[in-house]
């Protein structure tokens, strides 16, 4: 599964149920806020929620999980940094966080536990059947010489063409298609088992509304996260 298509193919819709904003309007607002430095804490808050969502619902790719976890940790650092001085001139974070700093810390601690739980699951892997490093023979015994300077590598003797950018043409249109047999079951309704197609850019934009910044306080229920955490723990 391609990393980029995982959640969409799986048909998981994470649009917030309370979100009814006009997609174009919300998109424009989001972009403007993405660029505004003053909204950094808002963005962090939104990304934090989004990352949590992704972490729990995403496909099983270790690379993706690690990148999301690191992003979560970075956001957490940023949030901690912003929260530590607790200046009165920072109402944005307080407005967006319908929780106190203490409860946010609790939540982050809880998050660490979850990340830990997720990570420790990997410790139950079966023993690696490949040879252990200790059992590997000394490869160096055969090659004692130092490597030649890398820059001294000789170009291959094959004569190669120099391309002219922009003069590429199609060789044939026969490669189009997926080169697989025709549908063997043309008469059978497979709509029930077919997966959702990719959303159009406009649909993505509408979907992007869930990521919009500065949502009103009432739209974000931390209890939902608690429920999700409970489900994860229970499973």
């Amino acid at each position: 599964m391609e990393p980029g298509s995982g959640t969409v193919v799986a048909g998981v819709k994470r649009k917030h149920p309370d979100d009814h904003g006009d997609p174009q309007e919300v998109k424009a607002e989001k972009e403007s806020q993405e660029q505004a430095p003053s909204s950094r804490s808002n963005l962090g808050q939104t990304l934090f929620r989004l990352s949590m969502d992704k972490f729990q619902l995403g496909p099983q790719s270790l690379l993706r999980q690690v990148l999301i976890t690191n992003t979560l940790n970075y956001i957490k650092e940023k949030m901690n940094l912003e929260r530590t001085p607790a200046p009165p001139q920072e109402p944005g974070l307080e407005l967006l966080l319908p929780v106190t700093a203490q409860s946010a810390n609790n939540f982050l601690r809880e998050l660490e536990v979850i990340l830990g739980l997720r990570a420790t699951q990997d410790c139950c892997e079966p023993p690696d059947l490949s040879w252990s490093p200790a059992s590997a023979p000394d490869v160096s015994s055969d090659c004692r010489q130092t490597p030649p300077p890398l820059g001294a590598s000789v170009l291959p003797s094959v004569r190669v063409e120099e391309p002219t950018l922009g003069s590429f043409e199609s060789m044939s249109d026969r490669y189009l298609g997926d080169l697989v047999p025709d549908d063997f079951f043309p008469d059978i309704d497979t709509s029930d088992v077919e997966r959702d197609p990719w959303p159009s850019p406009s649909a993505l934009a509408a979907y992007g509304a869930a990521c919009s910044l500065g949502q009103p306080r009432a739209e974000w229920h931390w209890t939902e996260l608690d429920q999700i955490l409970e489900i994860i723990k229970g499973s």
Partner: protein
Amino acid sequence: MGEDADTRKINHSFLRDHSYVTEADIISTVEFNHTGELLATGDKGGRVVIFQREPESKNEPHSQGEYNVYSTFQSHEPEFDYLKSLEIEEKINKIKWLPQQNAAHSLLSTNDKTIKLWKVTERDKRPEGYNLKDEEGKLKDLSTVTSLQVPVLKPMDLMVEVSPRRIFANGHTYHINSISVNSDCETYMSADDLRINLWHLAITDRSFNIVDIKPANMEDLTEVITASEFHPHHCNLFVYSSSKGSLRLCDMRASALCDKHSKLFEEPEDPSNRSFFSEIISSVSDVKFSHSGRFMLTRDYLTVKVWDLNMETKPIETYQVHDYLRSKLCSLYENDCIFDKFECAWNGSDSVIMTGAYNNFFRMFDRNTKRDVTLEASRESSKPRAILKPRRVCVGGKRRKDDISVDSLDFTKKILHTAWHPAENIIAIAATNNLYIFQDKVNSEMH
């Protein structure tokens, strides 16, 4: 030739006009062999399709260089790991051709867990006139054998046979992201998220673990291996890239377990440019040695970089692939596109590099002239001999005719996998379930 033609006819009849795309049809890897005569594609359905370049035909002058379907086979099937209760997808992650040693061709294909070695052979003759067997292979009644004859080889319709030669299983706990055949032609390596194994091509039941970055406590895991490749000339050297944007060059002569790299290629991050997405967009999705072996090409989310093996501190060249997406990273994170793994490729002389982008666009960068071009792989531009028109993405300001705005880009159409012919300017572009093959018009007319 008759049966070969029939085979192609059958294969072509398999082509269908796609008004929809099924998951299994999506091409997941493209790879030319060492001469460029063959091109293999793998898809999410576990199938491998091999194309062969046709020789020049007097009757059809335009058929020169065209690639036709040579063979199609099912490489991997979906499996289930009962110990971990995990499905193992049949998707072909990578294909690598082995240097040709005899009349047969060999290739390695891998899904998330299992690597397979396939042998591709042609048969156009068959023995006839056995003394003890009839044409169907059954033993003759000895009483009917009255004289002895010498069996002879008779021509027959060309038949392409693909047979599995080796299956390298149980070597990886995590998902295999790369395989690379060593220049010694005897070994290859396979890399997953946390480990790299070295295999002998003839031995399937053991492998050497040459890199292991798995921490003792998985809670401490912050970095994974994203790609790796052997040096094209020095069989002791290989490189692997990481999710933190670094490259580690390892020398297998230093120690059996290459936990300590010989060189670390890393570009220092500008703290002022640090953002929430810095790490994700700096994760290296592909690394390729140049044909000369002097340089390395890496792709991250927004750029391609050329590294000199003699300079670890920063890349010698950085090219922006689609910098206009920098302001869209939040949306791209939300729709998961930010995790897309774009590949990159060198041309035969290492003077031009190519990589994919969104909206079925792909980019080329000329290292000498510093020119760059955006081209589009689309059905409209894929009519035979149609020249690709350069495309331009408009980032605001004055918009020319035919420009496309950033907001109009289709992020579902992405070119992740590309390949460049090893010696000629022929490129293969995988766009979802379509394979496009383009050639440089100027140079093809000169030949």
